């Protein structure tokens, strides 16, 4: 037990006198956390700010279809554009070109 204790004391003494060692031991992980967090945060913001346009043509008048659209909206990735239910597929395809929408449902 005394050997273990003297070894711990010895290592604490050596470390406390090694300023560069302390900086590397504590500073480097902190720096790494800051860098990774910044990169992840900027990626997250990029996704949130640039929403994908999604044309929605809801020909269903039921409750479930409305709940589905609300759920898609809550994902926060899409900019929903409601299309009249009278429009046919050709018209929706044309709207995708003019509105520059990538998706349509």
């Amino acid at each position: 037990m005394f050997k273990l204790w003297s070894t711990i004391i010895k290592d604490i003494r050596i470390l406390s006198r090694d300023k560069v060692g302390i900086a590397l031991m504590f500073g480097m992980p902190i720096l790494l956390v800051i860098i990774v967090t910044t990169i992840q945060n900027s990626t997250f913001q990029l996704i949130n700010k640039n929403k994908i346009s999604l044309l929605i043509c809801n020909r269903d008048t039921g409750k479930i279809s409305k709940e589905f659209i609300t759920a898609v909206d809550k994902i926060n990735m899409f900019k929903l554009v409601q299309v009249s239910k009278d429009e046919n597929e050709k018209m929706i395809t044309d709207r995708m070109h003019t509105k520059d929408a990538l998706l349509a449902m």
Partner: protein
Amino acid sequence: MKALAVNIQNLAFCYPGRYTSIFSNFNLEIAEGERFGLFGPNGSGKTTLINLITGVLSFRDGSIKLLGKEIKRRDKSINKLFGYVPQDLSYYQELSPAENLEFFGAWSGLSAQEIKTRSKELFGILGLTEVRNMPIQKFSGGMKRRVNLAIGVMHNPKILFLDEPTAGVDVQTRVAIINYLKELNKNGTTLIYTSHQLSEAEGLCEKIALIDKGKIIAHNNLDILLLENEQEGLEGLFLNLTGKIRGVHDV
């Protein structure tokens, strides 16, 4: 007849991955209380032999006994029997001499009180009292050597191995170290010394062994060997027995 401090019988050793043996059927006996010198040219096997005796290197064939205890078994009591002052300075230079002795003393099995008492005693003997709390990295070469020696003798070993203990120190420090070693020997410590400082060895060693290429080429009292070989000093004896000029291949 004195008991044997070191008894090596039929030792064989070869470094892993090498085909040639450093030692083969090697025998050596060193009596308790002797001041024994182990000499030989570079690469003759002196340091390897000390590393084998102290357990730094392990061997398969033969036996090494320290004060009658087989070193192969490596029980903890064997570690307490000997001290080792290596050629390379072996301590933590970020720490002070007091902190180093505290650490190495604990690992030698001394209690906190024993460490305190022994450290104070050694600092006084080796002239380190005033610098005992300063980091060793600021010390001169001589002071570093004295700290190295203090660590080796911290636990009052019965056998002390010294591998060039005075390398790179001034005359005053060398004389102080040699006098301290003689004092230790008077108190019963067996000294096993190796160095290239042959003039220093003449003053310290009573008995010597010359080894070359892993074999003992001479082993006796220094005075008898000088007489037998009609030499006046250890340097002449050394050159006479190991050859004046080493071959190009040896170099």
